[in-house]
């Protein structure tokens, strides 16, 4: 680099640049969280059941195989839209699907990917279904592109 460009100029770009963008990021975070998100994530519909469902989701490490809104492992299907895919957007249909599915695991088909049997209670399965239904209704800029996730 040219001699005219000194080390202290480089340091000032680093300090000034990072300070500016940290502040900008905080301001954007504030705007996102206080103004935009309440309208997009239906937080008024987060019931006790949804909260319990999120704990079921976490305590069984579902993210270790599945993606949720595209984040997670890529070994098993996307579940942010499973309410639409498997429940056709109907709570009762989805709950009975979830009940049948969770109790049928694992399939034990030789050579196929296996989902463990988590021994969830009926209540836990229903909570999980509620959590996934709420998740499916978050405004996520229309992702995924189609029903297959």
């Amino acid at each position, binding site marked *: 680099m040219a001699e005219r460009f000194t080390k202290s100029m*480089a340091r000032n770009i680093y300090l000034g640049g990072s300070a500016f963008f940290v502040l900008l990021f905080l301001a954007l975070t504030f705007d*996102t969280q206080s103004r935009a998100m309440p309208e997009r*994530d239906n937080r008024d519909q987060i019931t006790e059941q949804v909260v319990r469902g999120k704990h079921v989701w*976490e305590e069984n490490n579902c993210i*270790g195989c599945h993606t949720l809104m595209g984040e997670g492992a890529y070994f*098993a299907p996307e579940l942010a839209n499973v309410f639409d895919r498997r429940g056709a957007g109907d709570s009762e249909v989805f709950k009975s699907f979830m009940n049948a599915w969770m109790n049928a695991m694992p399939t034990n088909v030789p050579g196929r990917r296996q989902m463990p049997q988590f021994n969830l209670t009926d209540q836990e399965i229903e909570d999980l279904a509620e959590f996934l239904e709420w998740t499916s209704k978050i405004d996520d800029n229309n992702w995924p592109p189609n029903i*297959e996730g």
Partner: protein
Amino acid sequence: MRYESQRVAMPYFIFALILFAGQIVFGLVLGLQYVVGDFLFPEIPFNVARMVHTNLLIVWLLFGFMGATYYLVPEEAQTELYSPLLAWILFWVFAVAGTLTILGYLLVDYATLADVTMNKLLPTMGREFLEQPTITKIGIAIVAVGFLFNILMTALKGRKTVVNIVLVTGLVGLAALWLFSFYNPSNLTLDKYFWWFVVHLWVEGVWELIMGAILAYVLIKITGVDREVIEKWLYVIIAMALISGIIGTGHHFFWIGPPEYWLWLGSVFSAIEPLPFFMMVLFAFNMINRRRRNHPNKAAMLWAMGTAVMAFLGAGVWGFLHTLAPVNYYTHGSQITAAHGHMAFYGAYVMIVLTIISYAMPIMRGRPYGNSNTAQVLEMWGFWLMTISMVFITLFLTGAGILQVWLQRIPESGQALSFMATQDNISLFYWMRLVAGCFFLGGLAVYFSSFFIKGQASPAEEVRGPATEDA
């Protein structure tokens, strides 16, 4: 090695490499489960193997960073480490806690682990990469505080070089951002948003400071180029990293709830994220071309060039490949993401830790000019085998990802293949990835074997002053 206390880096490096081996073994288990779905089921289901694979990576890189810090901070500060004893105590605390956590993953099922570690009191588990029981997370925070205390006390009492300032800034950032791992609100969109404050702001933020500082240190040592020049480069690189990377977090906010302006912000800023990595390539090659000495440790120089190039390819090029929102709409959460993740972590962070190990380990073993020629040749074979295998792993996953997008994402609902049907269709790529993974393990074995070759390089192999032929 000027200061006896630098030697405390040794156990950190050795333990890091042991965990690295474990990470690769579990990587192969996962690769096989991708094609033989019921392999090791139900003993080690996929989610457990993946958790072990990714957590081992994170923990061994942290061990590597800490080892690097203990080695270079005293030398840069020109003083002994504040407390070698504290460094040893924290080593054992972290090693035991890390091992117990991994054993916990493997020996009890995850829900039980959550139960016995009282996750209910402060639920933080079950989120990708942050699967550790809350008590382990607290342990990591305590180790980080003790570590930072030791390092700050050392750095502050001695010479304050740019390398030390940047490294310590990165480490403080790492520890501070870790606190977001304790924030797990019941609103999933909030949870995800702040989860990225750990994950993105680590790997595309403060870790780049750590990487830049380690690379700068090794380049000062092996090229003999004037510190002023190297420090100027370092400032420019980390300036670009933070200027692009902080708002670049937006590329993770496209499809998890935040508003549409992130589509623009994330796309534009992450499009400049390759720049700091490109500058690292220029930096490494420029300094080596302008070297004032020919250090006999050729292997360390190879790692230093390798990490710059592979970080640029993996983090820079493969990141840019799918970072623009209209592209990411189709590729988000596909095998393209996995391809990028593998090469980026290997190129930037695995290789920078192996760079400092390659430079510092021989010195700590009483070989100031590096290992013997035979050992270096073997180490370089390890370098090429692992690096080329990783290139192929990345290419095969990219192939799988492109096909996945083509079959599963692009067609309309009704015509698109289901996730599982798509997986069946792309299994050939997974098989090839598995073969490349086996070569990686072979490369790792060759690399490890280089540590067991006796002998050292002699100062006579170094040509001082203007290099003889190619300068």
